[in-house]
Structures are given as C-alpha cells and as structure tokens.
C-alpha cells in the first residue's frame, strides 16, 4: 500500500497492519520516536493497536543524542 511518510510517498508491504509494524519496518522500533498520523500524535502505548490505512499521512521524528 502507498502511504506518505515525512512528506514523501512510500510503498510499504501489505503485511504491515499497525504503527508498531511500520516503525520496525523503518528500523525505528527501538528508538524514542514521536509519531503523527493524519495530524494527530499517536500515544506510544497504542502504537501496536493503531491501524495503518492506505494514503495515511505520517510524520516520524526520532531522537538522537549526537552533537
């Protein structure tokens, strides 16, 4: 399915069902990350219940320590 991630269109496998699936798809599952889905910030505790839909607009910001 096609989704929009950080302003860019991306095709992801149909096997991804939730925000948590998507985060591990992008290798962000172990990171501290803020997720916005269609303009709404998704609470961390519900990442594995929140469903992904085609054409979703997602924004991910993950925290890094370097400087």
């Amino acid at each position, binding site marked *: 399915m096609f989704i929009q991630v950080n302003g860019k269109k991306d095709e992801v496998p149909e096997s991804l069902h939730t925000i948590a699936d998507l985060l591990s798809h992008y290798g962000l599952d172990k990171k*501290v990350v803020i997720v916005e889905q269609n303009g709404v910030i998704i609470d961390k505790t519900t990442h594995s219940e929140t469903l992904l839909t085609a054409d979703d607009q997602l*924004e*991910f910001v993950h925290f890094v*320590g370097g*400087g």
Partner: protein
Amino acid sequence: METRYSRQTLFKPIGEKGQHLLQQKHVLIIGAGALGTGNAENLVRAGVGTVTIVDRDYVEKSNLQRQQLYSEQDAFERLPKAVAAKTRLEAINSQVDIRAHVLDIRKEELEGLLKGIDLLIDATDNFDTRLIINDLTQKNDIPWIYGACVGSYGLSFTVIPKDTPCLHCLMETIPLGGATCDTAGIIAPAVQMVVAHQTTEAMKLLVNDKASLRKRLISFDLWKNEQSTIDVSSLKNKHCLSCGTKPTYPFLSFEKQLKSSVLCGRDSVQIRPSDIMTRDLQALKEQLSHLEGKVESNPYLVTFFHQKHRLVFFLDGRVLIHGTSDISEARTIYHQIIG
C-alpha cells in the same frame, strides 16, 4: 554609523532595535563540538553581547571535518576545545565578551553558570547532560534550544518554560544512563542544518520576537531528502516531573551517580574524582616522569602514554582514558598510576 552589522540591521525583523537587544544578551552554549562551534560562530558574528562556551574535551584531528572553529595546530597541541574556540571567536569579533570553561557540565557546574543567562543552547552529545539542562532551565525559567544530529539526520526543538512541553515530556521513556550511542558517523551539512535552526530560533528569542518562534519539533534527513515537523504542544504533560505543576526535577539527583562514563564511539572512559578539585599538573608531570611511558603537556592538560592506553589529565581533576571502553579496566589503570 557602524557598518559591521549593517546587513543584519537591514533585515527588518532585527533592525537597529534588535541589534541593540542582541548586544545586551548573554548566551550559554553547552558543548564546543560540531553544534557548539557552529552556533558560537554565528552568534559571535551576529554581535551577541556575551557568549559563554563550555566543553570537557580537547581538539583531535577527527574533529576538523565538522567542528568549524578548529585548526590542525589546535589538534596538534591538544588544546581544550573551550580554549581554542575562545581564541578563534575573539579573532572573529573582538566586541563580544567571550568566556570559556573547560568543564564537564553536571548539576553543580551548570547551576553556577546559569546566573544572568538569557538563553542556553544545547550542543552536547548525550542525553544525561541534556536532561540536567532540561531540569535546571525549568527550575530557573530559562529557555533552551535542543539540537542533535547523526549521519545526515538532525532535529531541533525550542523549550520555553511554562509555555512549551519540555524534553522530558517529549521523550517520556528516556534512556536513563545514556544507552544511546551514535556510531553512524556524521556529515558536516547535517550539523550546519541543525545549527541554522538553533541560531535562528536563538536570534528570535534574543530580539524578543517570540511570535516568530517555530513552536514545532523539526527533523530532517539531508541524504534521504526528508523533512518533518510536528506540532507537539499536546504533549505538554501537567504531571511531568520536570515541567509539570509539581516538579521534582528527577535528573538533578540522578546525576550524582555518574562518576565514570564511557564516551560514545570513542573507545574512551572518563573518570571524575568524587569531589570537584583542581589537579596540580606540574606535580603530576613530575610523578609521571618516574613511570614508564611518554609524558606530554600544555598549560591545560597532561597526556601520558602508558602501554596501549593514553591518559589525559585535566586541570579540573578529570581523566580521559583512551584505549578502553571498560569502566572497571579504566579505573584499575587510573589507580595503578595515580594510587
């Protein structure tokens, strides 16, 4: 009329009035690595009245690719970054009062430095220090600008006490004790992009143009051509222990445990003696000269080459032990040499 700042005062949101305000402000920059040197150079060129820069490290060759204030000579002499930065910044703009401290910032040190500060810029490389900054700036009602980068990725957020969420609100589950080691390398433009965001937000704050602040968390990846901004105002948590209605400032007590730390991606351990002290470098040199190994020194630090390790002793008592990332091994070496 002075021409030095003419292009900046022609820029309407700053103007002569803004320039005058900049000249009365005092900015504290924590860290003189990539982000610290970039922000410091911008703010000093812009004519901020006083800039204080603090760093615990010394210049090495591997810094020169992105830490814009340093030269090969600084690396050759192993000058402390704060010292080398001050010299270069004074050459750039002699009208700015530039203060430098060779220090590993913890609660006590930072508390002393916050007096009279209008704004703090985060240019550290670890979350332990950032969370101390986050708690102390909340306690003292001082805005600060988080910035970080790794690879071609970077992000920034401006924390205004009482107004925006704090770093603790944003991160919630925090890697306490710093399990976050970035070893993916870094390209200079990613640094400069974060610096551009931080310095611009700083200028807005310093000329009192709060309405123009970005107010959003921003991140980008220059190599992947991605950018993202999120309105995080809904994450301000009134129960937050750092910025909520009943703050306990949890990271101000946690820091006491951090006596030794592994430096990220550097195969080095820092040992901090339990009381802040000044080390007599002259006496140390004399003591080391009786041991096997080469001793080198400058006015700020002594380097001792001991078997496969290199020990760097600072005036403030700290020791960096290069060639190990094992804290207990580092402590053993330290005690073998110092007793």
